[in-house]
Structure formats: structure tokens, C-alpha cells
């Protein structure tokens, strides 16, 4: 219980700081909306009936926006040695990992919920509302993986000189399985007015990936912080 309470304390602190500064959310929202607008101008009508291409656009926008946010996850912790302050707390290092990952998950999800209606207006011609719950499930599972991988790699890159460049270099190759599963499942959902059975294969893949990377983060975060 204490473990969870302390995770939520970190999440609460990050949310309070973000509400005050809005620097992470603002840059992510502006970026994702601009990307969708630009793709709309670039492809427009040509994407009609090409659900997978539309889904690709959506996830490329989401992933790049997520990187913008993930790059900032530990920046405030480095200011004035706050990461040392966190590490001095009598809690397992995994509490810090899950706290930061959960905060990132919330920020990424909020940005996506704002961007999703814009994406629907620009790129979706069929009604996918019957499968909206499925789309939300895809978003949740993908975001868990993005936050789990991104938080771990953000902690690794924060101590490097070119940290803004380092995170994307480390992040994108590792996140490819999530990108593929998210694009495939989103494509199936937005192209079909009925329940697409194949989507569950991709959802299973996302769930497995999430579990693996949360485990990796849980087991390795201590060494990432201390070395």
C-alpha cells in the first residue's frame, strides 16, 4: 500500500508542476496538432479508404509528440539535484520508475485524447464509434508501452551530453513492435464498422510487450539511476 501511495505522490508532484508550467503538454499538443494538419494538407483526399496509412500518420504524430514529452521527464529532476532528492527517499528505485512512467502515461494520454477528434475529422470517413472502446484500449496499451520504454530510456539519456538527440535514437528502434501493433490494430478498427477479430492478435502483442518492458524497467531502473 505504501508502495502505491509513494508512486501516486510522485505522479501528483509531476502533475502539479506540469499544471503550473504547462511546458511539456503545450509542446506536445501543438506538435501533434500541427503534424495532423500538415499531413492533411499533404495527403488530403488521397487517404480515403487507406485506413492503415491514416493510422500510420496518427501513430507517427503520437510517437514524436511522446518523445517531446519523454525528453522532459527527468529534466526537472536534474535541476537543483532533485533526482538526488528522490533517490534519498527510503523507497525502492522502482517506485521512482513507476511514478515517472505513470505521470508520462497520463500526459501522453491527455494529448492523444485532444488530438483524436481532430484526426477523426481529417482522416476518417467511416463510422468507427461502435469500436471506440477498442480504439481506446489500443491507445491505453500502446501508451503503457511507450511510457514504460520511454521513462527507462529517458533516465538513461538524461546523463548524456546530447540527451535531446539520444532519447529518439534509443527509443525508436525499441518501440517499433508497439508502432507496428498500434498501426495495424488502429487501421483495422477505423476501417471496419463491425468488430474486427484480427485486432485481438495485435492487442495481445501490445499487452505482452507492455509486461516485458515494465518488468525490464522494474528490474533495471536501480542500475540506470546509480551508474
Amino acid at each position, binding site marked *: 500500500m*505504501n508502495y502505491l*501511495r*509513494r508512486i501516486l*505522490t*510522485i505522479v*501528483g*508532484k509531476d502533475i*502539479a*508542476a506540469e499544471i*503550473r*508550467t504547462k511546458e511539456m503538454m503545450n509542446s506536445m499538443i501543438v506538435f501533434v496538432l500541427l503534424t495532423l494538419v500538415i499531413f492533411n494538407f499533404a495527403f488530403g483526399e488521397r487517404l480515403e479508404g487507406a485506413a492503415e496509412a491514416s493510422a500510420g500518420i496518427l501513430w507517427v504524430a503520437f510517437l514524436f509528440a511522446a518523445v517531446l514529452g519523454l525528453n522532459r521527464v527527468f529534466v*526537472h529532476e536534474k*535541476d*537543483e*539535484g*532533485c533526482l*538526488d*532528492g*528522490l*533517490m*534519498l*527517499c*527510503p*523507497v*525502492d528505485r522502482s517506485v521512482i520508475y513507476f511514478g515517472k512512467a505513470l505521470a508520462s502515461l497520463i500526459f501522453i494520454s491527455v494529448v492523444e485524447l485532444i488530438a483524436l477528434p481532430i484526426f477523426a475529422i481529417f482522416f476518417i470517413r467511416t463510422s468507427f464509434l461502435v469500436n471506440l472502446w477498442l480504439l481506446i484500449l489500443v491507445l491505453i496499451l500502446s501508451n503503457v508501452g511507450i511510457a514504460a520504454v520511454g521513462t527507462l530510456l529517458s533516465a538513461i539519456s538524461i546523463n548524456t551530453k546530447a540527451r535531446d538527440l539520444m532519447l529518439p535514437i534509443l527509443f525508436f528502434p525499441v518501440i517499433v513492435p508497439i508502432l507496428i501493433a498500434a498501426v495495424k490494430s488502429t487501421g483495422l478498427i477505423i476501417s471496419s464498422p463491425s468488430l474486427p477479430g484480427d485486432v485481438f492478435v495485435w492487442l495481445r502483442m501490445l499487452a505482452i510487450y507492455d509486461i516485458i518492458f515494465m518488468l525490464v524497467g522494474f528490474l533495471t531502473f536501480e542500475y540506470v539511476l*546509480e551508474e
Partner: protein
Amino acid sequence: MPECAPSLISVCGLSKTFGRRRVLEDIDFEVKKGEFLAIFGPNGAGKTTLIKILATLILSSSGTVCLDGIELKKDPLTARERIGLISHESLLYGDLTAHENLRFYGRMFGVSNLEERISHLLEKVELEHRKFDLVRTFSRGMQQRLSIARALLHEPSILLLDEPHSGLDPHATEILDGILEDLRKDDHTFIMATHNLEKGLNHATSVLILSQGRIVFGGRKDALDISDFRKTYDSYVGGHV
């Protein structure tokens, strides 16, 4: 030899290497309850690394450190409950208020009666009137005072100080010294790393000189001839006092 010596803090055969660079080598010392150990040395001597190892922020490469009978590597979580760190960095979040910062750290340490404790400490460091202001609007001296409140929040018995006077104006230095003196009366145990000989000798009961990662001098202050000690220090640090 027992794993942990009876002193409150005992460091035995401690070494630390970063890659091929050996930063600390074969460090041994003990500190009894209520003592104030000042560790002197020039920049790059390994003082901050030593403080960080004692604070459980980094792992030593070899050797043992025991705090109050707890071996750091075996039980770092319990050791952290007894350690307070005041460094030249405040370890405070600029985008949170003074109260929010203390509440955050208090919850992370599981402090009971948190609001009472926060009020008491803010009064002690004379920041009660600024408790709802963002920390980034504070002067360096105010941030350092709040940093002291943060370090004392969970009532640690051991205080680690890493260049705590760095960047402070004379008034803020005076306040910090006053608080440290008050804490000494409460039987806290201190280890302070500094290259400021005056400040260190002012507070210390024991001294160490660290040079190139090795202890080159150590002793009790009351047994020292201060002018000889200054000469010794100068000879190791090349007069950079």
C-alpha cells in the same frame, strides 16, 4: 573484525572507481554519535563522491559503510531514513511552493504529523511567511534554508553536508551556521565536505584531509595545532584554501 564497528558511522576500506579512474582509495574512518567530522580537500579530491556514497546515491566499488549498525549495501532503505543531505544544490523543485516541496518529501519519507512538522521547520528556517511562494522565486540563501528544512523533515540522526555554504551571502551563511549549531545541541551527527577551512574548523570536532582520493591526514580537532594543520592542508592542496 565485526562487519559494522560500534561507532555511529564507520567506513572501512572504501574505494570507488569510475571506469579506469580511481576516485576514492582505501578510505577508513569512524564517527561517533554527536561528532562533527569536517572533510577538507581541494576540488576533485573525492569529497562529493564520498558524501554521495554515504548518502546511498552511488555505490562504492569496494569496502563497507555502516551507519548506525546498518550496512549501506545490505539495507540502503533503512539507512536513508537516518540520513539527511544538505548539498550546494537545494534538491528542491522550483515549480512547486515551499510547502508543496516539503509535503512531497514528507510523504515520500512517510513522515507522520506532516503538516505540524512542516510548520515547525518553516518557522525554524524563518520561511513561514513564504510557504506558498514558488521556490524558483527564492534567493539562493532562502533556497538553502528551505533545503535544511527538507533535510530535517524526517528527523534524521545523521546529517551529510556537501559544501553547504557554497554561493551563500554572509547573512545566509550566518543563518545556516546558527541552524547547524542548534542541531549540534540536539545530538545530531555531522559529516561536512568542504574546501572552506574556516567554516569547517569552526564546526568540526574531527577533521580529515582528502587528496586525490586518499586520506592524507586525520585527527581530532582538540588535539590539533591549528597553524600546523593549515600548513599541512596547504602542502596537500597547494595553498588553495
